[in-house]
């Protein structure tokens, strides 16, 4: 097999469309995963059983079923009785929701890592629950878990091609389409490199963050 640059040139417009979609999905998916995960983590520490229990069941369910199934469900089943969303939006929601159940575990570990003495000091000062969380516990917990959260951004990047199954063509989806139509392998190779080009600097950045944040 000979490498043919003209296939690379042909693929480029599709490639950039794919990159745009990958980055959009990653950015908004991360936003959802990070914020929802925090909601789950805090809800699971609630004193009220009726909050704790459903959240536990829901997150366990999501975490233990494949992302692909969830994407299909969101795309084909939910519109039957709920909102119908574009492939990209569905992908973002699916990715964000799925990984929120992982980030919630990360947050949980971070919250549990805050010494009891911090809760006790907050009680001794009569800080409100809200203030205890926002001013004392979360700033300490989140700082500890930023590197672990960052890992999930990289994992989400690598899992984002699953969105192609519902028609949201990320860079890999575009490459697959192009390759199957032309029986060539250049497009796939370009995308392989693109993943490294995005993921590796992100990993390095994470390691730097880790060194700065975790003492």
């Amino acid at each position: 097999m000979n490498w043919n640059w003209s296939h690379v040139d042909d693929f480029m417009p599709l490639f950039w469309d794919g990159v745009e979609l990958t980055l959009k999905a990653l950015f908004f998916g991360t936003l959802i995963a990070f914020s929802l995960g925090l909601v789950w983590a805090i809800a699971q520490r609630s004193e009220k059983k009726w909050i704790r229990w459903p959240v536990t069941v829901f997150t366990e369910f999501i975490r233990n079923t494949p992302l692909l199934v969830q994407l299909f469900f969101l795309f084909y089943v939910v519109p039957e009785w709920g909102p119908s969303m574009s492939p990209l939006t569905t992908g973002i929601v699916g990715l964000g929701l799925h990984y929120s159940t992982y980030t919630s575990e990360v947050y949980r570990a971070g919250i549990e890592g805050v010494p009891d003495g911090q809760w006790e000091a907050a009680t001794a000062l009569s800080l409100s629950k809200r203030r205890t969380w926002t001013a004392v516990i979360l700033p300490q917990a989140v700082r500890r878990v930023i590197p672990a959260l960052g890992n999930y951004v990289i994992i989400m990047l690598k899992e984002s091609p699953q969105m192609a199954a519902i028609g949201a063509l990320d860079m890999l989806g575009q490459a697959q389409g192009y390759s199957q139509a032309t029986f060539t392998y250049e497009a796939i190779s370009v995308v392989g490199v693109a993943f490294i080009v995005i993921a590796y600097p992100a990993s390095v950045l994470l390691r730097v963050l880790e060194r700065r944040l975790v003492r």
Partner: protein
Amino acid sequence: MSADSSTSQEIPNPAVDGSELIRFDKVVKRYGSNTVLDELDFSVASGKHVTLIGPSGSGKTTILRLLMTLVKPDEGTIKVGDNYLTHEERNGKLVPAGEKHVREVRKNIGMVFQQFNLFPNMKVLRNITEAPVTVLGLSKDEAEQRARELLDLVGLGDRCDAYPSQLSGGQQQRVAIARALAMRPQVLLLDEVTSALDPELVAGVLDVLRDIAHTTDITMLCVTHEMSFARDISDQVLMFDSGRVIESGTPEKIFTEPEHERTREFLSAVL
């Protein structure tokens, strides 16, 4: 649980003068099958400095933790001033206290911990102003002014902008004292505040507390192994054993002529 023959003995009420500020009434606290406090009755008069001594596991720290509402009693009532800490009166009936009621009564109590427990994510000044601003509703300026005065009092007026991790243990503990005082509590609870400190840092913290004890009318309840400090600041020393007060009196009496055999044993072991 404890079959001590002295349990029926009348313990003199420490509230000899001044109004009664803290009252424990038949307080029981168990951890699993271990009864730490067994129908404990005791009271502290307003403005008094009371030191609790006794072997570890005798329930001293549990008393402070009950007062700070860090743990709940299994039975009995605790009163601070005119209000129950554990209960509230509704339609003339005593019911377990709600969160709001607890917060209100608890504002009168401050605590300094063995491990300081400063908030590491906040600078020294913010550690002290956080609660006065968000709980008492002071303006930021008022709170900062109060904080600076207190930092001067504990000899750290120049460390407002440091993070706790940049301070020595002794300095952190002095900030923690300032933080507790910033709420202007009626009662200050001191839970082995020098136990986690390097020996050379203990004196600075004790000096600050001595100063506060001698210049303010704050009520102090202190668990300590520093007998010289206890002797120096206390009006009253309570000797605990197995969750009961077995002897109480002035420091002179307890330290020089203890009546109870257990007190003598304990003192000879720690002094």
